[in-house]
């Protein structure tokens, strides 16, 4: 089956999911991002690599955070950025998603960054765009959020260096999380020997162990000896859907506190894709504590996105 993300030369044409991408491609993105971290720290934060290129942010699902990071990354590469908050405009006029894409393609777009509430939206768009256009998935339903996973891998490598020695735990609502799925694929591809998911049964997808993870329902057991703790955000809807009784009970059993963190390795790092629900999945003391690398994640996020756009544009 041909990989819809790779062109016929095996080079990255679209970034839709971390699943199915060979390790060398993931590592190339991380290595390229290293150069861009340097750029973000310079006084001149711009480089001319994508000058003249048009990058369209197609956000069918709103997100100021993610959209802003992509916008900053694109502008640092000297690209022209157009933001389309489609949730508000043409969709409500009944224009189909593909019609919107076709109209924009006719405006000489070079790259689409797509966020949608439905799994598979980015794949559908990638199947239908002209061959010169690259698609980056900025999050589709519960399926994938590859740039988030990549910046998480970048962060892990920065602090822990070697993937082959690590125990990594992902804590929270795995069932609804596109971030978790993308992280799991990336971690296993990069050779992390033990990936754990820690979650109540109502928030775990069926047969999740087939993705290559060890399942824990007891957070204290799950955090023992862990090098990296990846926290996931808990959404309020979960209480309404009869999957959880309350935020308080969730925090007691699945929230990251200093006591629970102490069960992990003493130099374990704590990560979160943001935005955080303090007091629900993570304690402020931990979020702001010395083991937290949550703020550096944001900086690395820009460098990783610059790397992805550069690699795609150069292929």
């Amino acid at each position, binding site marked *: 089956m041909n990989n819809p993300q790779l062109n016929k030369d095996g080079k990255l044409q679209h970034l839709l999911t971390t699943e199915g991408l060979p390790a060398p491609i993931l590592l190339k993105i991380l290595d390229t991002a290293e150069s861009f971290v340097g750029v973000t720290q310079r006084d001149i934060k711009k480089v001319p690599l994508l000058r003249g290129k048009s990058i369209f942010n197609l956000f069918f699902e709103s997100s100021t955070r993610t959209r802003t990071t992509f916008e900053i990354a694109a502008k640092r590469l000297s690209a022209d950025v157009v933001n389309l908050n489609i949730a508000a405009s043409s969709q409500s006029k009944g224009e*189909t998603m593909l019609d919107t894409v076709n109209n924009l393609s006719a405006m000489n777009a070079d790259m689409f960054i797509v966020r*949608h509430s439905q*799994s598979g939206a980015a794949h559908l768009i990638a199947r239908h765009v002209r061959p010169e256009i690259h698609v980056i998935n900025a999050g589709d339903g519960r399926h994938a959020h590859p740039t988030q996973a990549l910046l998480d891998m970048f962060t892990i490598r920065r602090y822990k260096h070697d993937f082959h020695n690590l125990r990594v735990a992902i804590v929270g609502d795995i069932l609804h999380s*596109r971030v978790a799925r993308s992280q799991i694929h990336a971690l296993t591809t990069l050779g992390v020997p033990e990936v754990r998911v820690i979650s109540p049964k109502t928030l775990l997808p069926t047969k999740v162990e087939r993705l290559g993870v060890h399942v824990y329902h007891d957070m204290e057991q799950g955090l023992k000896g862990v090098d990296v703790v990846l926290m996931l955000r808990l959404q309020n809807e979960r209480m309404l859907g009869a999957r959880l009784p309350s935020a308080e009970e969730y925090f007691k059993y699945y929230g990251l506190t200093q006591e629970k963190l102490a069960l992990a390795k003493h130099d374990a790092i704590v990560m979160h894709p943001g935005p955080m629900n303090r007091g629900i999945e993570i304690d402020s003391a931990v979020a702001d504590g010395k083991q937290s690398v949550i703020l550096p994640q944001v900086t690395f996020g820009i460098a990783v996105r610059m790397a992805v756009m550069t690699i795609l544009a150069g292929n």
Partner: protein
Amino acid sequence: MRILIKDGRVIDPENGMDAVNDVYIIAGKIVAIGAEPDSFQANHVINAKGLVVCPGLVDLSVRLREPGLEYKATLESEMRAAVAGGVTSLACPPDTDPPLDEPGLVEMLKHRAKSLNQAHVYPIGALTQGLKGERLTEMAELHDAGCVAFSQSDKLLLDTKVMMQAMQYASTFGFRVWLRPEDDSIADSGVAHDGEVATRLGLPAIPVCAETIALSKIILIAKETGAKVHLCRISSAEGVAMVRAARQQGLPITCDVAVNHIHLSEMDISFFDSNCHLIPPLRAISDRDALRAGLVDGTIGAVCSDHAPVDEDAKLVPFGESEAGSTSIELLLSLVLKWAEEINISLAVAVAKVTSEPAKILGVEAGDLSVGAAADLCIFDPDQHWRVEASILKSQGKNTPFLGMELLGKVKYTLANGIIVYED
């Protein structure tokens, strides 16, 4: 009109025939097979050498999309598709717009279909008004208007008490109740089988227990009320096992399977192919294998196409937003032949699954080539390949997971009431 179909391999499962024979038709009825009737002069001779001559196919679920859903397909286009697929009798579910819950609508549909002079249409009436699952329809009136059974189509929407009362009322008259076994609240907004693929793809999922819980309810109520129940589109290994056990207890329960489900599984969804968005969902390979076994041992009586033409726009959207269904009436024969070849069963057994067996489930005179029966026949070439292409499909719906694939088995002629309604 006197028609002679010469030298075909006649397969008539109901009458146990599988041999090369000539078929003689006079005035729309089969008058003889084998021995030429006295002073028979044919107006028209069909040379069926190398071809199979079998009863016209009986399809238990074909959406004609009329009334109300004409932007998806029309009676004309879908009836043309039916006969191109060798189907001469078809049952259509009540989920039109408005649903078939009034005798007037049923009569109109039957009238329209009859005027097209192609396949026989047997409407399935709505079990409850508007299909809302609250108040019963006038089943007796609907039966008089031509409904052969009553169903809730895709969404049960029946609370347990209403289900029981509806089945009890139907059984008063001996009417059949056709139910799709899926618990609405567990299925919720699921679009794919709850398994490895849905987990990887992040698709809202429907667990097997949605089917088995509904099945146990239906089976127990059937036992309680004595209603004749037909289960539409079984999808799981556990479901088949439950039906098998119920039938072994002697309960009057039949079931069918959609032809896509005896070939495909959740794996075929691949990179979110919305042509694989089906109701019920495509489940695991082990489920598919159990469905195949259930067909062989008779637990599952018949294969139907579950034909559902969908307009292109409704499929060219993300998987979870796409409309479920596939156009399948023109692929029914080929896919049944493919199944037969893969599991190495005889052509006659395979043909029975789409002719005599569904006719029994429907309770109509069809699906066999008995002398005196209406001359509804399908003549096909079992060795001819054809490519499933949008331009070849007569249905307005081009939405099939098999698009672009080559299949074996081509319908060459279809006769309904002794008239050639399709010729390749």
